[in-house]
């Protein structure tokens, strides 16, 4: 055979093909999931005694022949330490290695777009509808139904966030009612404002009065803001609407009712008034850091976050606190005066398993251990959130008066307020409403628009975004 030398034309052609191949690989489809092997049905003679082994994995998904590597995304050392991970690997049967990939939502999207999604990833329960719309998560219904560790009847109602359109796509690593109040009792005492009673639901109007009375100024400077609220604007609107059985979106999520819903207009106007009175951080007088930091530093008299603020309070150095630690207390969330008190988590962080994973059983083994094994027990003991398994509630710290106060308060709320997951729009992220509102609130505070115009702008921006997104996904 005659050996031909490579011509320049051939060389360039080859180079181009190589480059194109490399480029196209990045645009390729997601890896094809391993075909499920259907077990052959075997008739067992009736007279023969059959020893039934406990089901270790869902019957529809057979275990892989050998332990496999699992790629875990978005779970830092703080949430799953190497020690815990090594303890898991030491006893794992289907996992040989766990690759920890750290990153944010953008990197996660990039991994999916490149066709190399992680096997399991951490994200908010609020993202479930969007992920399902993207066809990303594996339906874990069968896994939960057969698990000896993660039993459906042991799940906190909040886990409902992960149950969507008939599927069950994951669960929280921990959660909390997110609209609970955290008050600085010392600030109330100093201002001569009656300290809110425990286990009592106050109204938004009460909170407006507190905010005004508790704001402390020196000239134009704000030494202490009365209320440093969260910026869960969509969550605030939705929980208020849930009190009356309403929702922010129409049934098929194609439209948001903002300017035409009297209650929504009232709530936004209420916040605009508080911002104008400068008794709540606002676009013209923002927090120097964030509300939780302001709270423990004594720059905010009360805030509105979840039980996880307990972790921040007990973790702060005594000498950095402006007053004794037990003055930081928890109270139930507010009510607009509707029929029922509502305070579910607004999302809560949890885990998903990727639908196209080639190692579903291995990923599930990691998932099950993290959610129901020693790491879950450690998280419950840490006091940073409520475990998603009710059986672990007993591990939540109750040792000190402060621990006990926070524990009793949050438990009271779990029992006395609606914990049903709020409706989440699969087409737009929660950031859309926040972005539109903050932009227009600033215009209102600068007297460039009226409150009606600001709300109409928010309505238009959110609905335009919805229209664009639906158009992008489904055409039209």
């Amino acid at each position, binding site marked *: 055979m005659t050996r031909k030398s490579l011509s320049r034309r051939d060389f360039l052609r080859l180079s181009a093909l190589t480059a194109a191949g490399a480029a196209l690989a990045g645009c390729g489809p997601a890896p094809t999931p391993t075909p499920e092997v259907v077990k052959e049905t075997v008739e067992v003679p009736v007279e023969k005694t059959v020893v039934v082994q406990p089901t270790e994995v869902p019957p529809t998904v057979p275990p892989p022949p050998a332990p496999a590597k699992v790629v875990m995304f978005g779970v830092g050392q703080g949430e799953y330490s190497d020690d815990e991970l090594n303890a898991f690997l030491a006893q794992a049967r289907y996992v040989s290695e766990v690759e920890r990939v750290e990153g944010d939502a953008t990197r996660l999207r990039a991994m999916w777009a490149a066709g190399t999604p992680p096997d399991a990833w951490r994200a908010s329960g609020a993202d479930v509808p969007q992920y399902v719309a993207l066809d990303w998560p594996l339906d874990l219904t069968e896994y939960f139904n057969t698990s000896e560790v993660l039993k459906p009847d042991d799940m906190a109602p909040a886990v409902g966030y992960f149950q969507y359109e008939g599927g069950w796509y994951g669960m929280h690593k921990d959660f909390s009612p997110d609209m609970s109040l955290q008050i600085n009792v010392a600030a109330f005492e100093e201002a001569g404002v009656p300290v809110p009673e425990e286990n009592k639901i106050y109204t938004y109007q009460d909170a407006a009065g507190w905010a005004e009375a508790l704001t402390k100024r020196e000239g134009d400077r704000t030494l202490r803001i009365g209320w440093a609220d969260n910026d869960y604007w969509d969550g605030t609107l939705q929980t208020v609407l849930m009190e009356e059985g309403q929702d922010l979106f129409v049934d098929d999520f194609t439209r948001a009712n903002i300017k035409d819903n009297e209650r929504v207009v009232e709530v936004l106007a209420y916040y605009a008034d508080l911002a104008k009175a400068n008794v709540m951080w606002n676009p013209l007088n923002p927090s120097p850091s964030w509300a939780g930091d302001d709270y423990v530093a004594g720059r905010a008299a009360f805030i509105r976050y979840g039980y996880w603020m307990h972790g921040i309070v007990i973790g702060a150095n005594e000498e950095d606190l402006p007053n004794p630690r037990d003055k930081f207390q928890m109270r139930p969330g507010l009510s607009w005066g509707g029929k029922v008190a509502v305070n579910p988590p607004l999302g809560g962080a949890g885990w998903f398993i990727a639908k196209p994973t080639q190692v579903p059983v291995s990923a599930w083994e990691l998932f099950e251990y993290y959610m129901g094994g020693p790491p879950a027990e450690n998280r419950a003991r840490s006091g940073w959130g409520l475990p998603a398994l009710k059986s672990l509630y007993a591990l939540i710290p109750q040792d000190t008066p402060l621990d006990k106060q926070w524990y009793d308060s949050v438990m009271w709320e779990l029992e006395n307020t609606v914990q049903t997951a709020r409706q989440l729009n699969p087409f737009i992220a929660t950031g859309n409403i926040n972005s539109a509102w903050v932009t227009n609130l600033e215009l209102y505070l600068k007297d460039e628009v009226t409150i009606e115009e600001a709300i109409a702008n928010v309505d238009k921006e959110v609905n335009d975004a919805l229209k664009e997104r639906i158009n992008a996904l489904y*055409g039209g």
Partner: protein
Amino acid sequence: MAVIRDIQVALRERGPKERIPWRKAKWFYLFILPWMVGFLVFTLGPVLSGIFMSFTNFDGMHFDKARFVGLYNYVEAFKDEQAWWGFNRVLYITVVSMPLGMAISFIAAVLLTQRVRGRGVFRTIFYIPSILPITAVVWVWKLMMDNNYGLVNAALDAVKPGTYLRWLTEYPTQVLIMMGLWGATGQATVYYMAGLQSVPKELDDAALIDGATGWQKFRFVTLPLVTPVIFYQLVMSVLGIGQILVQPLLLAGGIGGGGGGSGLGAIPPRDNYFYMVHVFNRVFTYFRFGYGFALLWLLFAFALVLTLIVFGTARYWVYYEVGQE
């Protein structure tokens, strides 16, 4: 070694317009192949796909659902009031900070090339800000300029009690300009110093012998010889127009802290809502990647035209010692 020798021989043997034979040139291509592949895959590929995507409604995740929408994104961009607002803010900050930055760094370079005691220390101090991580820089500035608890207001209050300025919300662009000047002056100063130090001493001496004053020496000898560096700085500044993104996002104050109020999810004050902030918002909050690409290409087109204009003016004011073809 033999390969390199082959190339060297080939280069020596070829005539001015003569092509190197493929037998020898193949090694050249082989050596540049890794770079070429990298360029094609990581630069040219994304650039071309960016052009293509700007004509689609791509949402960042669904290649399969992306549809060709023609010029829709570009038409929308011209009708987008927030994009225009962001663009105008970019023009404002550019018009103010570009000449100011060039002047300050040039003056600093002139001073730092003088024979003064502690010159090395001053040079180091000037350069340090340009090597600091931007997140740390912004954090420090945020602490200094905070409306209620900032050091600057505290200092002003000490001098004149009752003084209170809302730096981060009423003067956010001015704060950004000050921060930019503080952070970027060092780098530009180094370039100017290099240019100033390359001015031949004999020209200075000749000017002195001819009776030139210090100012005349600077105006008619030093300055013309430094114009290539000034030109370079100008071109780089023009190319950087509209690139401001991270600083305004990090400088924005938190309204709360749930993710939408601080960090990269923050909405900066209206005055700091620059063009790239708008692009970032549309892409990562609204998932309008196709539209975001269109906005970016429009910005590129603007920067390109401006750069060509700057190049066009070069013949009138940039002095090169070698002849220009």
